[in-house]
């Protein structure tokens, strides 16, 4: 009786070994584990017969059962390992690096924001501080304090969207010059990016656009400083070979005033994109206008209570979309505000 049981027990090992040899997947191998070694498996079944044995017989059978269990576990684990290794090899052999990936969404920064950042970082690097202010302004800060009294012909240059007789949408970021100077005492160097508004809408004008204003006031600020700062800015943003040209101009809040041109970024200043093709961006002049600037007009200092005999300063204002168009080669201004994802997505 005892020997029968032990014989049956011991026969389980070759039986499992043979079955494992025929199993080709981990699932089949697992099924074999359940069949032979599981709680209701063959081994367990035989063991449940132990209850019928006499106490003398039990130790020998128990010992045999343990040996069988260990042997079966070993062959099973060996088989699992062998199968796993085969599968790993297979997986490696057929690993496909071209398989499509799971990539997180790529967001995008509006080109206006990108340019504003780039410009602001040039100036903050030079020690300027970024300030911001309201987009709805009053006549004093937007015009009067900037030496643009009512009926001044220069008000023509910026047709205004009005909220009431004296409240308007700021036509430039220059009111931030006034607000900053009223709030602080020199020396001060600030840069003010923001939205501005004009009553103008056509293929080259949108009623809202963005400007960046810069202002430096101290006791010995000169036009040479202005040129130096703006050259640093231009060459950082457009490259070190870019040439800068100062041309006299007029702004009511600066005197002397200048427009700044840079050598055309499209044709490199030659005026031609090919030997016989005129550059359309600079209209063959080799120069493109990018900003207006000048020395703060003494009349502006008077309005904010700075003594023009002590302080001098410079101010400049540039159009962000204009820079973005030149920098990225965007031809149509209106695209900036359509928010087409195929446009925005290019600035990721």
């Amino acid at each position, binding site marked *: 009786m005892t020997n029968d049981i032990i014989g049956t027990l011991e026969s389980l090992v070759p039986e499992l070994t043979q079955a494992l040899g025929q199993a080709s997947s981990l699932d089949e191998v697992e099924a074999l584990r359940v069949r032979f070694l599981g709680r209701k498996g063959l081994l367990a079944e035989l063991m449940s017969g132990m209850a019928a044995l006499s106490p003398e017989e039990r130790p020998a059978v128990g010992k045999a059962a343990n040996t069988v269990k260990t042997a079966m576990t070993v062959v099973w684990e060996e088989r699992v390992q062998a199968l796993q290794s085969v599968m790993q090899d297979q997986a490696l052999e057929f690993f496909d690096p071209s398989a499509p990936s799971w990539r997180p*969404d790529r*967001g995008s920064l*509006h080109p206006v924001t990108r340019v504003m950042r780039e410009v602001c970082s040039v100036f903050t690097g030079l020690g300027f501080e970024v300030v911001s202010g309201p987009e709805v302004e009053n006549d004093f800060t937007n015009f009067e304090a900037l030496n643009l009294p009512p009926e001044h012909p220069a008000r023509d240059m910026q047709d205004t969207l009005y909220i009431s007789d004296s409240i308007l949408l700021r036509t430039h970021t220059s009111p931030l010059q006034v607000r900053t100077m009223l709030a602080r005492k020199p020396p001060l160097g600030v840069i003010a990016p923001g939205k501005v508004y004009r*009553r103008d*809408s056509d293929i080259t004008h949108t009623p809202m656009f963005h400007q960046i204003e810069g202002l430096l006031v101290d006791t010995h600020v000169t036009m040479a400083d202005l040129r130096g700062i703006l050259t640093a800015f231009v060459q950082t943003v457009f490259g070190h070979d870019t040439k800068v040209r100062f041309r006299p101009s007029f702004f009511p809040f600066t*005197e002397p005033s200048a427009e700044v041109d840079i050598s055309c970024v499209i044709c490199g200043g030659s005026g031609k994109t090919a030997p016989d093709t005129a550059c359309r961006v600079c209209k063959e002049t080799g120069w493109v206008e990018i900003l207006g600037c000048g020395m703060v007009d003494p009349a502006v200092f008077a309005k904010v209570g700075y003594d023009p005999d002590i302080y001098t300063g410079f101010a400049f204002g540039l159009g962000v979309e204009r820079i973005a168009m030149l920098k990225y080669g965007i031809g149509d201004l209106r695209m900036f505000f359509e*928010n087409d994802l195929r446009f925005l997505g290019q600035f990721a």
Partner: protein
Amino acid sequence: MLLSLSWLREFVPYTGEVSALADTLTMLGLEVEEVRNPFAALDTLVVGHVVKCAAHPESDHLSVCRVDIGAEAALDIVCGAPNVAAGQKVPVAPVGTIMPDGLEIKKAKLRGQTSCGMICSERELGLGEGHAGIMILDADLQPGIKLSAALGLEDTVLDVSITPNRADCLSVLGLAREVAAAFALPLTMPAVQVRESGEAFTQFRIEVDPALCPLYQARLIRGVRIGPSPAWLRYRLLAVGLRPINTVVDITNYVMLELGQPLHAFDRDRLEGQRIQVALATEGMAFTTLDGQDRVLTARDLLIWDDVRPVALAGVMGGANSEITDQSSSVVLESAVFDPASVRKTARRLGLSSDASFRFERGVDQVGTSLAMNRAAQLMAELAGGQVAPGVAKAEPHPFVARTLGFTPAKATRLLGQTMDEAFCQSTLERLGCTVSAAAEPWEVVPPSFRLDLEREVDLIEEVARMYGMDRIEGALPTVQKCLHDLDKVDPTYAFLSQIKDWGVGVGLAEAVNYSFVGTADLDRCGVNDQGRVLICNPLSEDMNVLRTDLAPGLFNTLRHNISQDSTRVRVFEVAHTFVQDAQSDTQTKENNRLAILLHGGRFPGRYPYPHGQSEYADIKGLVEHLLGTLHLSGSFCRTPEHPFLLPAVSVQVGHDMIGWIGRVRPDLADTYLARGEVWYADLDLDVLLRLYGQTQIVFAPIPKYPVIRRDMTLAVPLSLPLEQVVHTVREIQESLLDDIFIADIYTPDAGTAEAVRNVTYRFVYRHAEKTLKDKDVDKVHSRIAQHITGQLPIRFP
């Protein structure tokens, strides 16, 4: 300002290249925007000699001409003009010519006769009104030479952009002065000699409003012949874009363009009485300007009156009741100065900007008024047979007084950062027409009467810089000094908004920028409160007439645009101001920095290996929680019944501060923006977030040393019970061993039925700060928690 080069050369002998002239003007601050040939359209036309002219065999009004144009073979041209005849010299447009009106001349057959070109009338050439027949040229002309050479049309025109301060450059003379100064060339003024005859013009009295008219003077010219001006004058006007009208009007325009002084000619016989007054209108009075428009005036409009009625809007436009007609013979020629602001107000209010008002608004040279008046009178005598009456009728309550300005060369050097030596400063100012007395510092500088813009020393410094060459000032990099006491005034707004935008990009959203204004209809459609809206009183259109009180309409437009462009997945954000009225503000407006996020369409791109699924509440809430987490803040989310366009709408609070709303855009509203699926939206107040963020501080917590034990508990939670309530209730007992609790899974077996409950598996994470936990410690706590929550909440074990 269009400048004719040939006209300029009458004042200054510039012989260099046009391009060098254009560059010089540009670098003087007189930007040349374009250089063009004003008669380029006539470039291919030539002088032809009509050798033979016969009646067309098939027509009673056409002629068949043989025209010699200097080429080997003469051209056959069929001509319809009644005045064509053999022996004439005529303008010929050969085949291939594009006429000024755009018509291309082609080889054609006219009733069987070949025609290889066109013989042109004045009107066809854009040179005049003559269209009764072809233009007949001087008989001495050589056939084949260019028509432009034959007519003296070879000119170059520079389009010069004049800044508002340089009123003096709105004339040939003014630009000639600059050219003379820049190239050190002599300036030649026109020789003006008025030959007076007949009865003196002394009976006219001039009465002016001294505040608005510092000078008014006039001459009388009798016996003028009204007709077309001579060709040279007409061509010159045409070259700079003015349409010739008749001798008298053309002469006033010519002199204005030449000398910068607007002139006006009245028909003497249509003026009542012996008096001219310059006085304000009365409120509401009507007046018909010579363009035939009836204008309603205000008490601020300045008028020219005869003895009984207004006859011109001063400095803006003449009246129909006194304008020169073909029957006129006596002309009262006005040369005056009007208050710039007054002219500007009237011109702007009436939307009536004329060449005259443009100049008066910017200021004219009071001293130069006499020269201009006399020059025009002389031309009327020479070109229209007029007799200039002796004497000038004049009132000048405020004769021109020149300013004396101080000037210190060292100040120029100090402001420009480039040495300006004294000799250069002096010669420059003198070349520009200033009188300089440099005996002592500051120098005494008297600007010329035509330079009204030179009012202060700094204006003189600009002149010195301009003539020195602003582009020659060398750059230097300054150091930006800072005040120690201003360091705490650093404005954090820009940096914070940048941080928010970076977050948006980082979580995969596209930044949109919309106009700050929308239409009131857009706001109404969203159902937002109409109180406190900031309206634009002169909007470009009705869909841009109000500032956004909510960013939504702008982002909804972005949504619509992209859906209309076939986008199925829109995930965007915008950082911008909203605006509401605020009586306390110096701008009457309160502006608020806000962040709006809009999600529509798939949670992931619709392709392998991403799973399917649309954006839902969890997505928008997750983004907001993620943002708050980035800022070291945490929010609470409560259903709110009150939102104009979100349903469901959920308010977001951080502590006691309301920071915004999230929710689903009402389907009916989303539908109007073309969105068929769900649109999820968040709107957050960045000013509040900035304030809260400014108060947060990162405090390091030690990293736990001992391991955790995790236990799951699955509970049947009714749909009516917020899931977070369970967590709150667990936390009520403040069990110190409980390190974390979160939902591991939710299964809703009877979804869609009335009895539906959620089987929610909460995972409890236990940890002891100072020792390794044993199962039995956890068992006790875990069952205490289970008892507590099943006792407190309508939940059970499933």
